[in-house]
């Protein structure tokens, strides 16, 4: 190894070996391009689109639903149309279904088979969402999982875990937090976190100044 000459011993510091999955994806992409199924440009556009998506889009839908009951009904009836109404890009996913949390019912979303997620409205899923512990425990011990995320629900609250195993993507409309009654839509949207739209968090009104302001 060049340029590394000092008086202690350790293995060379590298980025580590390429994970097997990455090698497989690279090989698969190579074959698909070679066979003309897709182009490098298609792949790049798709990746650029995915990383350009963000939970702030979903948050705009939720904030509007909090202040406009008729919009909330349209969001519950057809989330794709509601997204288009706000000039948001609902993406290629055919159907997004919005689930409303109330004082009595709390929804949380999982994909026990893989990582199905409303990427167009929330961006790429967090790593934990794709992890085996979350995927298995969400359905076997939802309240335990929620507690670990800091969500304590009363014994009388119905917890509904929704397993998105097929073509539908689910987006949770969390409860509007106490203390936000006088806040306008533009101040509500930043309260709507990614986790609250997966159903493992609850929006809160910060008591101090919020970060990034």
């Amino acid at each position, binding site marked *: 190894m060049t340029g590394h000459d000092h008086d202690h011993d350790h293995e060379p510091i590298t980025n580590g070996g390429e994970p097997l999955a990455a090698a497989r994806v690279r090989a698969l992409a190579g074959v698909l391009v070679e066979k003309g199924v897709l182009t490098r440009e298609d792949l790049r556009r798709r990746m650029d689109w995915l990383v350009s998506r963000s939970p702030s889009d979903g948050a705009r839908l939720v904030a509007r639903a909090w202040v406009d009951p008729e919009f909330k009904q349209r969001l519950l009836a057809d989330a794709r149309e509601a997204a288009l109404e706000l000039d948001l890009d609902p993406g290629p996913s*055919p159907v997004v279904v919005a689930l409303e949390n109330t004082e009595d019912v709390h929804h949380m979303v999982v994909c*026990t*088979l893989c990582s199905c997620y409303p990427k167009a409205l929330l961006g790429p899923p967090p790593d934990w969402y794709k992890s085996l512990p979350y995927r298995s425990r969400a*359905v076997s011990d939802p*309240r335990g999982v929620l507690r670990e995320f800091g969500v304590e629900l009363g014994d009388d609250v119905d*917890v509904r875990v929704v*397993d998105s*195993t*097929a*073509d539908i993507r689910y987006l949770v409309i969390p409860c509007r937090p106490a203390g936000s009654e006088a806040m306008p839509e533009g101040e509500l949207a930043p309260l709507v976190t990614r986790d609250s739209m997966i159903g493992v968090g609850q929006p809160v009104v910060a008591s101090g100044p919020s970060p990034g302001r």
Partner: protein
Amino acid sequence: MTYAVGQRVRVSARSHEGHHRTPGYVKGQAGTISRVHAAYPNPETRAYGATGLPEQQLYLIALASDTKNHVYVDVFGHWLEEAK
């Protein structure tokens, strides 16, 4: 066979060689139709290069539960059976 919201069903306990979207933990479970989604191409054939036609009706099933914890899961109609 199609099902309506509120109808009681059971998820087939059959095994299936190859790709399918019915998780093992729901097989054999009783439940109720909660939502009737649209019909979608069948992932069991589409995964192998076929068209997935005919499309299969997709349902959201509320699995039976005697606690305040409930699991809802999307299951294709050809995995459902009538339950008494």
